[in-house]
């Protein structure tokens, strides 16, 4: 069985979106592409979950959205991180790192 693309770890989609948008404003497809690229194809974003998460973050005031023209002259909705979004990203990241390193330590522990 081939190595399948993994769905984004539960609860980390918000983190991935915020991180991606902290680099530059982006539309939905761009975010999905970036996540897949940077994770070298390990994570795959499902558009339903993606847009639901975007809607939620938008309503939460972490993102702003506006319609812009893309490089190939199509209209697309671009998302920008707000100040609250940046703060959210920082706390999320710190939190994630703490957990990840804890899990790492546990997995490396010698019996």
């Amino acid at each position: 069985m081939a190595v399948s693309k993994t769905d984004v770890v539960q609860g980390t989609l918000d983190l991935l979106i915020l991180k991606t948008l902290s680099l530059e404003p982006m539309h939905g497809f761009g975010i999905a592409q970036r996540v897949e690229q940077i994770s070298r194809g390990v994570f795959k974003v499902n558009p339903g979950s993606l847009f639901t998460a975007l809607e939620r973050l938008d309503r939460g005031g972490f993102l702003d959205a506006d319609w812009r023209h893309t490089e190939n002259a199509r209209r697309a909705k671009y998302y920008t991180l707000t100040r609250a979004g940046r703060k959210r990203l920082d706390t999320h990241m710190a939190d994630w790192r703490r957990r990840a390193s804890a899990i790492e330590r546990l997995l490396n522990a010698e019996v």
Partner: protein
Amino acid sequence: MSLWRQLTRGLRRLGKGRRADDELDEEIRHYFDQVEAAGRERGLSPAQAHRAARVELGSPTVVREEVRSSGWEHAVSTFGADLRYAARRLRRDPAFTAVSVVTLAVGIGATMAIFGAVKTVLLEPLPYRQADRIVVVADTMNNGQPLNVTFGSYLELSSRSRAFEAIAPFKPWQPTIVGTADPERLTGERVGAQFFAAIGVSPSIGRDFEPDEDRPNGARVTILSDRLWHRRFAGDPSIVGRSITLDDSQYLVIGVMPPGFENVLTPSSELWAPLQYNTVFTPESREWGHHLRLLGRLREGVTIEAAKRELNEIADNPVPAFSRVPWALLSNGVNTTSLQADVTAGIRPALIAVLGGVLLLLVIACVNVTNLLLARGAQRHAELAMRVALGASRGRLFRQLLTESVALSLIGGALAIVVAGFAIGTLVALAPPELPRVGSIRLDRTLFALALTLATIVGTVVGLIPALQAARRQPQRGTQEGSRRTTRTHHATRRLLVVAEVAIALLLLTGAGLLLRSVQRVFAVPVGFDPSGLLTLQVQQAGPRYRLDEARYRFYTEALDAIRAVPGVSAAAFTSLMPLNGSVDVFGVHFQADGGAENDGAALRYAVTPDYFAAMGIPLRGGRLLDARDTSKAPRAVLINESYARSRFPDGDAIGQRLRFGPADGDWFSVVGIVGDVKQSSLDAGPSNAIYVAAQQWHWVDASMTAVLRGRDPASMVPAVRRAIWSIDKDVPIVRIATMDALVERAIADRRFALVLFETFGIAALILVTTGIYGVLSGSVTERKREIGVRAALGASPGEIVGFVVRDGLLLAAIGVVLGLGGAAVASRYLVTLLFEISPLDPVTYAVVVVLLLGASAFACSVPAYRAASIDPSVTLRSE
């Protein structure tokens, strides 16, 4: 900020759904296009790229729905859609809707009305400041019943007790007002100076009584009720400071009570004046008569229990400073109750039983509607299965069905408000006269809130089982089966519900039956006289012309002659105390045979004109009756009642005994005869001691007596009798006109009140149960048409099929009856205070109720059974 965004975005989607959807669609389309473009870049043809994107991402519609269903506004719009759908469904099935709505409306409406009564009468505080601190204090009779206090006891208790902020005695006062308009007899009270302080309401105009006005020969002052002030004096504020004429005396009006003020103990009171009793008195004076009621306001922080303890301690420890008389020794303790409890004591058990009854009725109504919903669920099987097949989630289906039942119930709740309006009107009309504050029962915000709450809860409860069952069902099975058969489980549920319904109906019917038998028994109690054809009316002498005993007695004899001359009157007499009209008049008794000088008991006093026994039909048991011999100059003679004679003189030597009655230094009376027992205060009380004395031989001649006369049609004689009395003195007020039948009826009013309501609930329950059983069996026959057809084809006779269906129904009823019997045996204990001479486990009642229920069940079975028997096997089998 984020909450604001939540709200505005949600509202935007709700309000401008199309535009928000368009934006989302465009966003999703962009995403898909980009995926396809990426595919083309990898070298796929446009068609292949399109297909690949679809395979990878699914349908754009699904994506859109996923995003849309995440917001809160989604729940709102689904609810709206459910509601619209529910309305369409309910409109399409008007018979089902009407039956369910009416059933729920009756259940909820009746509950509202009864709860309204319970709330107003039992739960709401009385309309006074800190009403929980107001108590009623009474002396106690040998049998533990409260007894009016004497002024002497009041003086001792109020001086020695520390528990009260204010305490005041009061007694009825019925002065006749003259001047300005027609003479009118008013109902009022003579009260202690602290009376209004104890109640906690002050006059709205003028001032309260002063302590020095409550003394013998104190100033004649009076306070008017707002109602009297408006009726007699047109609400003129200058009335305060003016004098009015009451009973030939001038009274200065010093105040007017605020509108809406009522003394809940005597709601008809319209004016008040100081009691003005002596604080120094002899044993034979009125100050030692048991005729006062006592109202107190407890000090801040003093509980009723503490006050009780203190008063009883005072009662148990006499001090020399306060002498007591033998008939007011307080030897049975002092009876202290909160005003609220005192006012509602009589009606509380009846109201609580009725509240329980109406809740049971509501449960039956709910069960019936649940069954209807289940039956409908069976019919809608195919529709629901289709919806599931089209992608409705179980939760969605569940929510939709629940919305439907809640909508149904809310319509029922709205109709229930109308039902409750009527029910409250009926309730007020039915209410026994002692039901206090009955006029204040009305539809208010609490009841509206109750209707809404009940409707929501009921809608959820009745919808829960049908909705759960529908949502749990497997769609494939539904589509395969079509609508012809149903799953076993929901059938079992419906049968279970019928069993529950029968059980609850049995509870209600048992309650109704026990009450009915009690009322019959109470009616069967011999009152001790012949109540049919009796008319009673009370006259009250007032004014200086009646200052002397002779004048007073002459009035009574002349009035009697005039009354006897009225056509249709066959006998007439006067008495100081009329049985069953709510009065009690007790004096101390001392038999010479007991030695000593102290009174050693008490008895009711009946000062009567000699023909009282003939007029009332009270039988003579021994000796002689009172007659014309017993004048004021003759030796003093009395009659006593037979159970008194038996208990005091078991050897049968009561006649000839000598006794002192009332004042301790009075004349000796000889017992000359024994008469039958008469019920005085109520039909269900045991026999009380009674002494009959000729009115002119008593220590004084009463200023107020009750005429009792016998005739064929007593009610129609009222005008003529009134004219006859007024021909002797046109100024004598005549009050409390009543037929004895009405008095007897009133004596059982609280039982009858509970009985009428329970009967109504019982009948309603019986109807609901019958329709419930009918519905279930009828549904089961329809669903088992094929099976019945097969049985018929295999040779079952119509009789066997009828038996088979009826057995099916009766089995359910029988299980319900068995469960209900157990429940009734427990629940009927709560009715005990309302029952009379009947056990809560009375086998006759239970047997009749069981037969009634089974009979109704058999009737409910017969129609579906007949339908089953007429099923033509060839038709049913071919239709498959």
